[in-house]
């Protein structure tokens, strides 16, 4: 029972971690919270569904295309809604992000209706279940965990070992100095939004397959919880977002199965508030010092 719930928690946590990475990377570079990220996640899921349903693609073709489409959408979003107000204060950016969020949520509603869409009718993925003692694992769950861990490792490699990763870290450290050092910071910001959106799209597809459901309002609860996960881990920190995502998934799954299912979402937020009271900058976050 406990082991089973842990595995379920890790599966859900993987999707939170993937979405949280988008929040944390954007925050790390621009110091803004992209409140529309949950809706990017939702749109990614719908793009994948659209490719399979109307273009008849098999899932292994549809998913990369959906990821690319979502990345492009993320880049356009930054160009239109965030770039013109980059120097404005964080509240202005937040309202703009809420505007984007409202726009995307209702765009999905107009395009696909407010109902729930099943993935299984179109993906062609058959579910097979493996049993070990009293633990049940499905092929979808295994794929979910493996893919999310692989993507996180890939991201870690990109950020730490490649040239563009160095540029990203420099930009997040100090955007002005990075610019003076000849880094094209606008390109780095676009790249960050692209990567974050693509990761959110993958999370959207995985969630869509795992729960076999996607609907326009799905971005709201996942977006909120992933944002909470990013803050829990220490917003701006990439390993923090991964850790926060998994903690969030495990806590809410265990809480829902052992205490009360109705309060599922409350556990995630309660743990967040408790952690923040004792560690105001999150688990792996750096404390910012006020300079006088």
């Amino acid at each position: 029972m406990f082991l089973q719930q842990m595995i379920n928690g890790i599966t859900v946590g993987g999707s939170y971690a993937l979405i949280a990475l988008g929040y944390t990377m954007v925050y790390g570079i621009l110091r803004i919270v992209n409140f529309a990220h949950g809706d990017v996640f939702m749109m990614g899921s719908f793009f994948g569904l659209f490719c399979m349903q109307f273009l008849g693609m098999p899932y292994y073709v549809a998913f990369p295309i959906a990821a690319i489409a979502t990345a492009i959408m993320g880049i356009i979003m930054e160009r239109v809604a965030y770039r013109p107000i980059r120097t404005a204060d964080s509240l202005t950016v937040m309202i703009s992000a809420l505007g984007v969020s409202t726009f995307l949520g209702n765009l999905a509603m107009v395009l696909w209706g407010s109902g729930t869409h099943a993935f299984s009718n179109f993906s062609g993925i058959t579910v097979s279940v493996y049993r070990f003692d009293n633990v049940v694992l499905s092929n979808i769950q295994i794929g979910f965990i493996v893919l999310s861990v692989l993507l996180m490792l890939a991201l870690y490699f990109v950020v730490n070992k490649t040239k563009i990763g160095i540029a990203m870290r420099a930009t997040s450290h100090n955007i002005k100095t990075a610019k003076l050092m000849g880094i094209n910071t606008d390109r780095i910001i676009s790249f960050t939004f692209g990567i974050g959106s693509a990761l959110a799209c993958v999370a959207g597809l995985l969630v869509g397959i795992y729960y076999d459901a996607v609907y326009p309002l799905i971005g709201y609860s996942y977006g909120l919880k992933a944002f909470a996960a990013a803050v829990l881990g220490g917003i701006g920190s990439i390993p923090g977002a991964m850790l926060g995502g998994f903690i969030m998934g495990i806590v809410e799954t265990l809480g829902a199965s052992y205490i009360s299912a109705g309060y599922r979402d409350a556990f995630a937020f309660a743990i967040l508030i408790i952690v923040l009271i004792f560690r105001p900058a999150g688990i792996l976050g750096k404390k910012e010092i006020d300079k006088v």
Partner: protein
Amino acid sequence: MNRKIQQFVFEHKKMVIPIAALLLLGLPFFVTNSYFLHILIMVCIYICLALSLNLVTGYAGQLVLGHAAFYGIGAYAGALLMLKLQVNFFVALLLSAAITGLFGFLLGMPALRLRGDYLAIVTLGFGEIVRLVFVNWKGLTRGPAGLPGIPSPQIFGFTISGRTEFYYLALILALFTIFFMVKLINSGVGMAMQTVKNDEIAAEAIGIQPRKYKIMAFVISSAFAGMIGCFFASYLSYISPTAFVYNTSMTILTMAVLGGLGSIMGSILGASILVIVPEMLRFLNDYRMLIFGALMVFMMIFKPEGFWGAGKRRRNIYKINSEVPDHGSNS
């Protein structure tokens, strides 16, 4: 354009205010359609909510993303007091403000340790937890089914029941909130709050305790939200958790920001526009919120200080108080 209107209002205060008051009082004589009256009542409710959020976010600088939770606590507290304990509406109004203020005090505690985005997420989490309690504590709140049959306000044997009567009550509450906020902002306490917002360390250096004023802002802000929540419960006579979701918090915040943070007139305008415009866009059906979202983005790009922002207001005060005409001091 905007600036000229603002200046006109400032210069002709003595004339503008009585005219506005007469218009507001006489409105039900022209507007007899109950749908329009309902919208006017909602405008009054949202003016109180936007103003109370503006106090804590615009004046004391603490970003709150869960304001609907206070609104909801007030509504549920008021409804339960009236339903289960048969308390008179006006007593319930005060009690629910007090109860909500207590919750505001609780949420203010982490605000002493956290700042910026971290505080924002804590308030957001608080809002979600409160909503989940409304949904799940079925013994008290009846969960998603909601609480029906909340009694109408009674005063000296007279029952307030029609839309017109509710409009006057809403107007009184809104005017009281406006009056209170104006007095508070211009008092020493209000000045101290704004100092804390502008620079906490400097505030501490001149002997203002940030923790005291932050907590105060939280308590007053939540008490007003709770008060209007109680009115809302009595007005609709039915409440359910769906009215107090994250979206409501965001709507209130949008009103305060689009109107102009740190400006009383801004919150009033923001609330009026954000209640009325979506109603006017109803003919667009499904595209309504789509367009609304795009408008929000454009507003932030082209007019980030809001309709009646603090930046503009400050400029106006200079112009009126000083005899020297300013030549292009538009900084």
